[in-house]
């Protein structure tokens, strides 16, 4: 039984491989998804507080104004946009649209850059 198990394929050692662009888009799709899951209870907590009373609402706004919190918000903006764009890419590929190697590389680059642009614009509006 053990011998049989040892010959089975293992999960790829992702840290030892040079990922192609499509691999980065895919890996970051997962990373951003996990980040968004972790953020969900925090966001719900903020929503809960913001609807309780005037004072609680102002406390949420006060907290959101801290630079460190704004950096976290920025990270979530990146996670959301990357997850969204990479998700679009997935659904288009489900419909057999853009599945050639060339198209896949190009769309991966678009996804990676587009989410960084949106994050950059958000950073600009937050900090400038």
């Amino acid at each position, binding site marked *: 039984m053990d011998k049989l198990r040892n010959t089975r394929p293992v999960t790829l050692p992702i840290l030892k491989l040079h990922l192609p662009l499509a691999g980065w888009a895919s890996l970051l799709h*997962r990373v951003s*998804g996990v980040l968004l899951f972790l953020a*969900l209870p925090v966001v719900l907590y903020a929503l809960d507080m913001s609807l309780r009373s005037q004072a609680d609402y102002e406390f949420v706004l006060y907290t959101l104004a801290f630079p460190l919190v704004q950096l976290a918000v920025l990270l979530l903006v990146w996670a959301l946009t990357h997850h969204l764009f990479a998700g679009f890419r997935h659904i288009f590929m*489900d419909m057999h649209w853009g599945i050639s190697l060339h198209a896949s590389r190009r769309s991966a680059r678009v996804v990676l850059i587009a989410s960084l642009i949106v994050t950059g614009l958000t950073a600009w509006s937050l900090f400038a």
Partner: protein
Amino acid sequence: MKAATGNHGGTSGWLVQRYTAVVGLLAGFALWLFFLRRPEMDFQSWHGLFQKTSVRFLVWLLVTSICLHAWIGLRNVLMDYAKPLAVRQGLSLAISLVLILCVVWVTDILWRMNG
């Protein structure tokens, strides 16, 4: 022979993943339009917005579809990276509980204020 887990090799999860992505996107987009119309926000208008049945329904739909989406997505991640069965099952249980609590929580947030 049928697999013990059912006769669909993950197809239903695959479908739920896509449905919830689209539903969540549409609900999120509709909410975004609601919030765009109110650039000047204070507590009164923020609170007032969540009195609307349409906004409550859309927020509930958004959070619930996110939770279902996350449930499938995290299960996929766990299947790839959490190899020891006990670790995988433990994390899976914890994640399921968190996601169920999130749906209950948002329902409470939205409907605890009457009128």
